[in-house]
C-alpha cells in the first residue's frame, strides 16, 4: 500500500490534496453556508403568479352589465339568449365600466349573427340555423329578430316542429298540399308522450286507392288499377308517401 502511494509522483499527490480541498470547500459552500431559500424555486414561481395576476382584465363578466342596463338584462333573462353573456355580442366591456364614454360594440349587420346561426352540418341538430344566402338577403337580422329576446318569426306548425325532416321533404313533393292529418290521425296524447302514443298510419291499399284508384274522380292524381297493380304488396313498400316519385 505504502509502496503504491510512493510510486505516485510527488506533484500529483500535492495537486490531489489541493483539488480535494477545493471540492470540500465548494460542497460546504453550496449545502452548508448557502441558505437553501436562495435556491428555492418558490420565489420566482410566486413572482410569476403575481405578474400573471396583475394582468389587465378585458372582459368584465356577465353579472355587472345589468347594474346599469337593467331593461335589456330583464328582457334577456327569459328569452332564448338567457345564457348568452352580454359580452358575447357586445365585445369586452371592462374599459366601458371604468370609463362609460368608451362604448362597447353592437353588432347590427348580418355578418355577426351568422357566426352562430349560419347552417353548418357539424352543428348540433336542433340548434337554430339559417342559410344566409336564402334567408331574407340584405335585410339586417335585427329588423325582424330582437337579439335580446329572439323568437322564430313564425312558430313552426304542429307536426313540423318535431318532424322537420318530413315536413321539408314534403314541401317539394306532389303531396305538398295534403295535410298530415289527411293520412294520419293524431291522438292528443302524442304531444305529451310522443313515443308511447303514436299517430295512426294508413293500413290498406284501398286508402291510397281513394285518390289513385281507377274509379277515383280526382283528376290530378295518377291512376292505377288496384286489382292488377302491385300484386300483394302495400303501396308504401315501393312508393314513399312523403315524397312520391313524379309520373
Amino acid at each position, binding site marked *: 500500500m505504502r509502496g503504491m502511494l510512493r510510486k505516485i509522483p510527488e506533484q500529483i499527490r500535492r495537486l490531489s490534496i489541493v483539488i480535494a480541498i477545493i471540492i470540500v470547500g465548494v460542497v460546504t459552500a453550496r449545502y452548508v*453556508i*448557502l*441558505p*437553501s*431559500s*436562495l435556491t*428555492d*424555486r*418558490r*420565489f*420566482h*414561481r*410566486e*413572482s*410569476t*403568479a*403575481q*405578474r*400573471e*395576476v*396583475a*394582468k*389587465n*382584465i*378585458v*372582459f368584465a*363578466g*356577465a353579472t355587472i352589465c345589468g347594474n346599469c342596463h337593467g331593461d335589456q338584462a330583464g328582457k334577456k333573462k327569459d328569452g332564448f*339568449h338567457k*345564457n*348568452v*353573456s352580454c*359580452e*358575447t355580442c357586445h*365585445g*369586452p366591456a371592462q374599459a366601458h365600466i371604468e370609463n362609460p364614454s368608451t362604448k362597447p360594440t353592437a353588432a347590427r349587420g348580418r*355578418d355577426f349573427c*351568422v*357566426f*352562430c346561426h*349560419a*347552417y*353548418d*352540418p*357539424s*352543428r*348540433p341538430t336542433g*340548434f337554430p340555423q339559417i*342559410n*344566409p*344566402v336564402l334567408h331574407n338577403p340584405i335585410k339586417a337580422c335585427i329588423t325582424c329578430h330582437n337579439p335580446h329576446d329572439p323568437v322564430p318569426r313564425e312558430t313552426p306548425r304542429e307536426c313540423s316542429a318535431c318532424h322537420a325532416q318530413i315536413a321539408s321533404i314534403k314541401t317539394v313533393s306532389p303531396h305538398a298540399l295534403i295535410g298530415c292529418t289527411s293520412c294520419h290521425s293524431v291522438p292528443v296524447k302524442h304531444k305529451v308522450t310522443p313515443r308511447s302514443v303514436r299517430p295512426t298510419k294508413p293500413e290498406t291499399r284501398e286508402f291510397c286507392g281513394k285518390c289513385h284508384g281507377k274509379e277515383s274522380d280526382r283528376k290530378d292524381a295518377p291512376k292505377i288499377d288496384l286489382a292488377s297493380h302491385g300484386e300483394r304488396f302495400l303501396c308504401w313498400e315501393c312508393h314513399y308517401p312523403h315524397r312520391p316519385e313524379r309520373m
Partner: protein
Amino acid sequence: MNRRKFLKNAVLFVSAAGVFRHLLKDAAAKPTAGGYDPANHLYGMGIDIDKCIGCGLCIEACKKENNVPKEPFFCRTWVERYVIKRDGSVTVESIEAQKGKPRADEPDILRSFFVPKLCNQCANPPCVQVCPVGATFATEDGVVLVDSKRCIGCRYCIQACPYGARYLHPETRTADKCTFCYHRIVKGLLPACVEVCPTQARIFGDLKSMASRLVRFTRVNKIHVLKPHLNTEPKVYYADMDGEVR
C-alpha cells in the same frame, strides 16, 4: 491578507449568511395579497362537445383578453371541426380560417362535430418535466404557468406537449399557453372563453369545491380526457367525446 484578517472575514461572512437566510425565510412565508389562498382551489374545465356550435367567439375573446397575436397560427385555445365520412375517412381542421362562412350540406358525411381545445393543465405535465431552466411549473391551484422572464424560448416544451397547446409568442420570443385566465379566476371571474361561450359548451369550476358547476358536470356526464394513455392526468374533461377525437 494575514491569517487573523482571513479568520475575521470568514466569521463575518458565515454569520451574515445566516442573517440573510433568516430574512429570506420570512419573505417566503408571506401569503399572497388579496386574501386568495391557492391551496384552497384546484381548477379544471369541462367541455360539452354536443353543445359546441363552432362559432369561434371563444378564440376571439381569448385573443383580446390575453394579447395573443391575431394570426390564426397563434392561439391559446382553438376549435377543431371533425368530419367523418361514409368511407371512414376523418378530416380535422381548425375552424378559424372558415369562420362565418356558410357550409354546404356534404352528402357523404356520416357524423360531424366541433371539439374545443386548450391547455389541459395536466397534473403530471410533460412540458414542466422538459423545461431546462425551470421556467414552467404547476401552481398549487392546478394551473401550469410560464415564467416569461426565465423562459429562454428553446421550444422544448412546445415539442413535448402532446396536445399542441403551446406556441412561441412572436413578440416576447417566449413560450405562451392557456393559463385559464389566471388573472381573472383568482378574482372570482370566469375565463374569457367561458364568459363568451353562447351555448355553455365550456364549464369552468373548482374541483376542490363540493358544489361547483364543474363538479356537477363531471358527476352527471360520461367523462373522457384526451390521450389518457400518456398519464398526463389532464384537468380538461370532455363529455360525449367521439372515439375519433385525438
